[in-house]
């Protein structure tokens, strides 16, 4: 464990996580995602009309390094809700499809659950991940 009292980047990340009820660490911005996984995660949140804060990890490699050290999660994106790591793109997508994400965000009944499993309406999916069986 590193000494957080002497680690401004770690402190800034912890503060951001505690101050934003829904926070997405991503590559690029919600308007211009730089990675298909980040784009898909943004699309899920936007399809639920869920306001969220976003941190672009690309400008400084130290952000990702400290974030992953803090969360124990190696990949980007990472979604935090109420200070807890929910997961990356796969988990967020699975939870959206099962309705768990809507429940977690207090969005029950406001969005279709069983239908519209593909949130990127109007655009081709950035990646085809699921349903390989």
């Amino acid at each position: 464990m590193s000494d957080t009292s002497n680690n401004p980047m770690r402190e800034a990340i912890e503060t951001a996580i505690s101050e934003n009820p829904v926070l997405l660490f991503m590559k690029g911005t919600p308007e211009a995602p730089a990675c298909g996984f980040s784009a898909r995660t943004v699309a899920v949140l936007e399809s639920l009309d869920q306001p969220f804060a976003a941190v672009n990890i690309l400008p400084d490699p130290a952000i990702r390094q400290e974030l992953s050290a803090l969360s124990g999660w190696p990949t980007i994106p990472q979604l935090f809700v109420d200070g807890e790591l929910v997961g990356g793109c796969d988990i967020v997508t699975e939870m959206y499809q099962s309705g768990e994400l809507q429940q977690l965000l207090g969005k029950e009944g406001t969005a279709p659950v069983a239908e519209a499993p593909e949130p990127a309406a109007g655009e081709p999916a950035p990646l085809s991940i699921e349903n390989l069986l």
Partner: protein
Amino acid sequence: MSVSPDELKQRIEDGIPGSRAAVTGDGHHFEAMVEGPAFAGLSRIAQHKLVYDVFGAELGDRIHALSLKITPTEDR
């Protein structure tokens, strides 16, 4: 430097006792469907971490992206 889907499959199955994996990929981006009793009772986060831990720092580096679909199975 590229990685084969077969290598990932083997390492997941060796690293997580009782698991079975089906892996596809292009040498950098992979999709893995993994099932096994080791995942039963774990949160999604913990299930994914179990697989991530097999590869450690190779994730995001040598293995650019690994998409996971995990199914817990009954212990027996």
